[in-house]
């Protein structure tokens, strides 16, 4: 059995769903951040797969993915920095307990 576009897309969808589930249900801000990274990488797989199977001559999907990875890295940096700052002042990273702005 050879691998086709569908296999990659199913993998991507599965990863995305796992990430989504994590992002919506987990309480720890770090785990949520990891889940979001998972979702981003699911999208990257889809991009590369589409690029590879639909326009094999072009590298648009790959190039786009590299951009996306850079953005994801920056996002993780900022996100972790925020989490660190919150932890220092509130001593928790439980998202349900960070509700200072709520009425």
């Amino acid at each position, binding site marked *: 059995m050879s691998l086709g576009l569908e296999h990659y897309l199913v993998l991507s969808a599965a990863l995305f769903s796992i990430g989504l589930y994590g992002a*919506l249900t987990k309480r720890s801000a770090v785990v949520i951040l990891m889940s979001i990274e998972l979702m981003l990488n699911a999208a990257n797989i889809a991009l590369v797969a589409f690029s590879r199977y639909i326009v094999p001559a072009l590298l648009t999907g790959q190039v786009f993915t590299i951009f996306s990875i850079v953005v994801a890295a920056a996002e993780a940096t900022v996100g972790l920095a925020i989490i660190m700052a919150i932890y220092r002042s509130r001593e928790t990273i439980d998202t349900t307990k960070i*509700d200072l702005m*709520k009425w």
Partner: protein
Amino acid sequence: METVIPNELVWLIFLLPILSFAVIALFVRPFLNNPRLSGYISISAIFGSFILSTWVLISLLSAPGHELVIPDFNWLVIDSAINIHLGLMIDSLTAVMLIVVTLVSLMVQLYSQGYMKGDPGYHRYYALLSLFTASMLGLVMVDNLLLMFVFWEMVGLCSYLLIGFWFHRPAAANAAKKAFIVTRIGDFGFLGAILLLLSQTGTLDIAQLHSLALAGVLTGTVLTWAAIGIFLGAIGKSAQFPLHVWLPDAMEGPTPVSALIHAATMVAAGVFLVARMFPLFEHSEVALLTVAIIGGLTAIFAATMGLVMTDIKRVLAYSTISQLGYMMLGLGVGGIAIGIFHLFNHAFFKALLFLGAGSVSHATGTFDMRQMGGLRKVMPWTYATFLIASLSIAGIWPLAGFWSKDEILASSINNQPILFYLAMVTVFMTAFYMFRVVFLTFGGQYRGGSPANHSPRPHESPSVMITPMVVLAVLAVGSGWFNVTGGFSRFLEPSETHVFQGFFGILAHPLPWVSLILAGAGILLAYAIYSARWLSAERIGRLFEPFYVVFSNKYWFDELYENIIARIVLLKGLFAGIKLFDSRFIDRGINAFFIENLVVRRFFSGLKSFDNRGIDGAVNGVADTTVATGRVLRIAQTGQLQLYGMFIILGILAISLALIFFS
């Protein structure tokens, strides 16, 4: 310098200040921390831009059609539908704006060396001035609306950051927010116009849009709405009625910033935008008429408020709004050359007025004119330059303001007689309020300055502040002479056929004399009240008390916007208003009549209870229902981002399923 400027150097005009911003923010501030170096870098960069701008101007004078063609790059290409270039449009309009922006920016930055000396935010100040200048230069040079919008927002951002420069003062922080939000309302119209033009024509290239309008392809309602949307952006940026409220508050920023951004350049960007897109306005009578009417109304409306302010910078702020109104009027009735000519002159004399105001506050520690006075003797240079600028803005022959103001008046008398009379009244008011400032600040005896001021005796400002003022004073006298024989107009509009009367020839006509007499009367009245004291200001204030109250409360526009529109939002506010009206007026009226009248009292007590239970109940019920609904709906706003995320996902799923099953 007969050679045409190389293309790369044209790009440098706005890259130099951006580079200076980056060097100061990323290198000088963190690693060297040498404030004076920041100033020098910024000033050298803008000086380089000024030299290059002059070169552009010289190249354009001999170029065919007064245009330079700069090769551009593809930037954003989406299939064949959208193709946005990264390019420059260098024509006579750009060249004039380049000169204005670089020259005023250079003078202001030199002046700031003295004014901002010792300020802890010195690096930030110069970095932001560089960034602002770069954005403003980009704004006037780019060749498509999308890039222009980007720079448009960037100057807005810099304006926000510089108004709030002393952000530890709540007034400054609030003024910055206000400026940002109010101009955003106008920008919404601009963005709408950009999207409309893109969807209707598929291009945002300014030259292409011009030719589409000229060829009659872009016509009718689309053209009118696009032009009005663009003008809405200009209203916000140029502080025209009814979005003028942010500019007087913007005076909380450092005074050189007011001179550069809120007098000479950024607020004139609105006028520039209309001039840049003028072919679109020209082919839509409605749009052009709107420009003229808004301009004419703003001119007189702002001038009335300028009459009664006691803060020197606020007088100048209202004066700026009023003069910007003149420019819009000039564009609306006369065309590009007339509006831009006033912009050109105004930039110099108004920047000078602001620098003068900064100089007197440097000496007295206040902007309140009631605490100044008598500065003529101790600050001769400031006095002389301020007087020249005041005469220029009042439109006294042969100073700069006279030439451009008279062109606006001359073209409005034929096209819009009503606006012409309003503009004439404004001439009188302008002369009056400017000389009110002059006599209050420089005439009479010194009234002590700010109570918190440590130096008891005011002193002349250092020469680093005086020199730029003298340069600007020379321009405030002479910048109008470029168009005495029509040279400026023909440069901007090669097809200009208007007959120019020459330096003395213009005095052979009645119109200049009428405006000169009106301006003279304004000056005389100011002299009579504030210097010779033949008339008492208090008595006149009482005589025209209703007007005084309306003007000094700025027509209650701030209250209208802040309380009614911004603070009490939506239906709750409406019903709270009804409830209040009911209990205050209807109830009180009915009660007063029925309770105090003993004969009908018992007879109507039943009616009263019906009123209390029935009518009040209904009205209160509506209000209470709204409040209660809000209370219930508030539960949905959990503040839990994950819950929101889940609903977003459910929504996407629902839409996807609907698309799969029903399409």
